[in-house]
């Protein structure tokens, strides 16, 4: 489900205002939550760094039904329960037609037991991934069928936006 952040994100007359909701449920301007849509950049190492612009796919463990008012995953791996280890962030791939934007983030399960992912979200960020003030949730999907990541395995999760 697209959050209200997504609509604000595409609206040029709101980009400079403090209207986006961060993981902390506070309002921020675009420069603090991932930058302008037309000046979007991506860093493969942005998960742990204070990159001024970037995106990643967050995974979580809550299963409350999504709403457009959601501002973070219910139980975020990045901020709430760091269970899976970030491995890499892929560059977005874009097709010309249909217009598709893919973001893939890979995690490892080194927790010692199987981990079940129940929710997935696309995040735009300008700080570290665990900074609640600098992360903005754009989409949130609660999985109909949770994903079990076996201990010792990696998982590559992709969120695709298509027009």
């Amino acid at each position, binding site marked *: 489900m697209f959050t209200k952040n997504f609509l604000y994100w595409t609206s040029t007359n709101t980009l400079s205002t403090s209207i986006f909701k961060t993981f902390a449920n506070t309002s921020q301007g675009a420069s603090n939550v991932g930058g302008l849509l037309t000046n979007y950049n991506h860093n493969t190492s942005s998960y742990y760094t204070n990159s001024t612009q970037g995106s990643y796919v967050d995974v979580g463990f809550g299963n409350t039904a999504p709403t457009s008012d959601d501002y973070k995953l219910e139980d975020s791996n990045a901020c709430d329960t760091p269970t899976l280890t970030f491995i890499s962030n892929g560059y977005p791939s874009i097709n010309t037609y249909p217009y598709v934007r893919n973001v893939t983030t890979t995690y490892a399960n080194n927790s010692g037991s199987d981990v079940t992912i129940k929710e997935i979200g696309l995040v735009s960020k300008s700080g570290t991934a665990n900074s609640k003030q600098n992360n903005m949730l754009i989409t949130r*999907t609660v999985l109909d069928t949770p994903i079990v990541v076996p201990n010792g395995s990696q998982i590559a999760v992709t*969120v695709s*936006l298509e027009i």
Partner: protein
Amino acid sequence: MGKICLNGEEYGNEVVANPQGSPTETLSTIQIGATVYELPSGGDGGGGDMNIKIYSMVGSARNVITENVSYEIL
């Protein structure tokens, strides 16, 4: 609101006026699926210089943005 009535005869399906409208103003809303009529203005013995046109708005162009999630266990 009733059916279109011309010279005492009813035509088509039920139509609905916009809330702010009145019987002498434009009907801006018509039920989806209703037949569209264009009625002649005036007429012998009619009710004056009436020019009634009813248009049915049945849809609009739309783009759809979709979000898909996929994964691969490595």
